[in-house]
């Protein structure tokens, strides 16, 4: 055969191969970039949901009562749905089209969580998204004559109810390490620091009594005693079987409820994670029963759980959207660090004599006239004002800062007007967030007292029940 023929044959063979290969690669690239677009859209939608939730709860004086919370969560879900629809270019009536790919949306709140997922409507036989009843982070412990249910929260607050021997108990309170905290009459010392603020003192006294009670009565409970509330998820709790660490013994110096890695906290996180996983799995599995796509809960990484379980957050799942060679399966979570549902060392800030807002360990903070605050109070709020102008009423809306006419200065005890708008964020800590921390005993005391005071003032559902 002549060389020319050979070349032609070779080209005839190799050309389609190259064409096919390049087409395949191109499709793959398209699929992947589509996947990225979807993930970005989901991210944005979840972020919008968190943003809406934040705005609503911060501007709502009653946001911690259950009814009000449901309203805020529903508003946030609406934002999520419209943001997602907008991202996909389907709007208005077609919003439902995109929602069918959302097997679940989870709101992890302070003492429990909401799951928003589709359930079958018995009358129409079609799936509808509903907000499922609030689920508390609960677990049951049975040991000897103890049979109690414990409600965990995202921090060191705990509610206990159930039988200890023949006595039925309901108690709630904050836990503190008995190794670090000593209360002697009116004398409160935490980790070598004497607490002087009256409300902080009350917090520590209550916490001391409660922790003492928990340690005395429930101290012998081990991880292995954990049982589900119902019968249906027995199996998943078997992972705790045989664990003999005492979770509620706070005389143990290793078990500091403020430390992230303490026995109490790792168990608490384990329980919350298990509860969310079980309920989410159930929600997704029931949705996939009647659908062509098999909705499954993706495996979230440990670092992600860690973030989710220490903050109020929203997790959105999106699955089943066909895209070329693959089917989309993704999730996104956004944590909300600015809220009034919980107080942590990170959600309080300090104003100093220079009119700047600082973190407690900022090197630029002047150590005089320091007052501790909850950080969200420095956010702008929208106010509506109705005034009579020439005989008719006019409503104006504006964004402004909070002011308080009778603010009690915790350091001096006097009442004075306080304008949150008069303070500027410190460039070193609040704006750029990078600084060499300066930690002195005065500052630690300030932090301990502010966190304790704000926790004492915080509204908890169980305060209302007087338990």
């Amino acid at each position, binding site marked *: 055969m002549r*060389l020319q023929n050979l*070349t032609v044959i070779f080209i005839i063979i190799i050309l389609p191969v190259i064409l096919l290969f390049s087409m395949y690669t191109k499709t793959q690239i398209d699929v992947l970039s589509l996947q*990225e677009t979807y993930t*970005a859209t989901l991210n944005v939608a979840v972020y919008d949901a968190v943003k809406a939730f934040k705005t609503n709860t911060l501007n709502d004086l009653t946001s911690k009562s259950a009814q009000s919370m449901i309203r805020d969560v529903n508003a946030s879900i609406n934002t999520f749905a419209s943001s997602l629809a907008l991202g996909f270019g389907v709007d208005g009536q077609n919003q439902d089209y995109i929602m069918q790919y959302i097997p679940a949306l989870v709101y992890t709140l302070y003492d429990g969580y909401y799951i928003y997922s589709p359930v079958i409507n018995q009358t129409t036989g079609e799936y509808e998204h509903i907000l499922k009843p609030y689920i508390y982070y609960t677990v049951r412990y049975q040991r000897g004559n103890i049979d109690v249910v414990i409600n965990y929260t995202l921090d060191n607050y705990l509610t206990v109810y159930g039988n200890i021997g023949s006595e039925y108990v309901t108690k709630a309170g904050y836990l503190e390490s008995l190794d670090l905290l000593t209360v002697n009459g009116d004398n409160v010392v935490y980790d070598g620091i004497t607490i002087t603020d009256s409300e902080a003192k009350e917090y520590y006294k209550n916490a001391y009594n409660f922790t003492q009670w928990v340690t005395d009565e429930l101290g012998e409970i081990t991880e292995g005693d954990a049982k589900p509330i119902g019968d249906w998820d027995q199996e998943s709790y078997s992972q705790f079987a045989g664990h003999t660490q005492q979770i509620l013994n706070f005389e143990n110096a290793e078990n500091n409820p403020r430390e992230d890695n303490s026995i109490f906290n790792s168990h608490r996180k384990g329980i919350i994670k298990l509860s969310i996983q079980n309920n989410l799995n159930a929600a997704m599995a029931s949705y996939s029963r009647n659908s062509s796509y098999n909705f499954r809960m993706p495996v979230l990484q440990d670092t992600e759980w860690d973030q989710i379980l220490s903050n109020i957050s929203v997790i959105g799942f999106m699955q089943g959207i066909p895209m070329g060679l693959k089917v989309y399966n993704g999730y996104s979570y956004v944590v909300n*660090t600015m809220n009034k549902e919980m107080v942590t060392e990170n959600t309080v800030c300090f104003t100093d004599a220079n009119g700047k807002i600082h973190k407690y360990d900022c090197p630029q903070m002047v150590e005089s006239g320091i007052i501790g605050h909850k950080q969200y109070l420095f956010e702008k709020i929208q106010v509506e004002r109705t005034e009579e102008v020439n005989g008719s009423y006019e409503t104006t*809306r504006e964004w402004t800062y909070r002011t308080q006419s009778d603010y009690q200065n915790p350091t001096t005890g006097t009442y004075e007007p306080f304008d949150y*708008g*008069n303070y500027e964020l410190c460039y070193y800590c609040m704006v750029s967030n990078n*600084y060499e921390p300066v930690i002195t005993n005065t500052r630690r005391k300030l932090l301990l007292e502010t966190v304790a005071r704000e926790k004492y003032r915080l509204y908890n559902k169980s305060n209302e029940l007087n338990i």
Partner: protein
Amino acid sequence: MGDTLITIIAIFLAATLMFVFPLMSVSERTDDITQLNIQTLTTQFVDNIRTTGKFTEANYGTFIERLAATGNAYDVELEFKIQDSNPGRKPAAGTSTTKIGENLYYSEYTSQILEETRNNNGVKNLKEGDIVSVKVKNTNKTISEMLRNFFYSLSGDDTYQIAASHSGVVMSTGR
């Protein structure tokens, strides 16, 4: 004599057609796949910063390692736009307080960011509202570029074959 010349030309053409073109095509596909790979890596890297609010040396190191694993050398440009919410805080008398979103940003670039991170135990915290953007470009010549330069060459500083970028607003304040 004439036949020999034709044969030599034919061999030359055949070699070009049979080796160089398939090679070019395959190497371009390789670049496409690399492109895809680094786009995914960049997106993941940026989204991780956005959701955690943290830029860590460890994550940056992993990112660079993964980029290097594609067999090319890259130039990574980081830019963080830090939101400065102070100018809007104290409205001057007479100005409207109804405006929101009039924030200013100041930018930090790769070397500043890396230096700050090193000085701060390998972590740089960002806050909600800051903007992260990362650009990645290849700096070496890939095989497909070399082959292409054989036929026609592009000149200039900004000739890169593989590039990826991603940016977004930080969604939670890093601690």
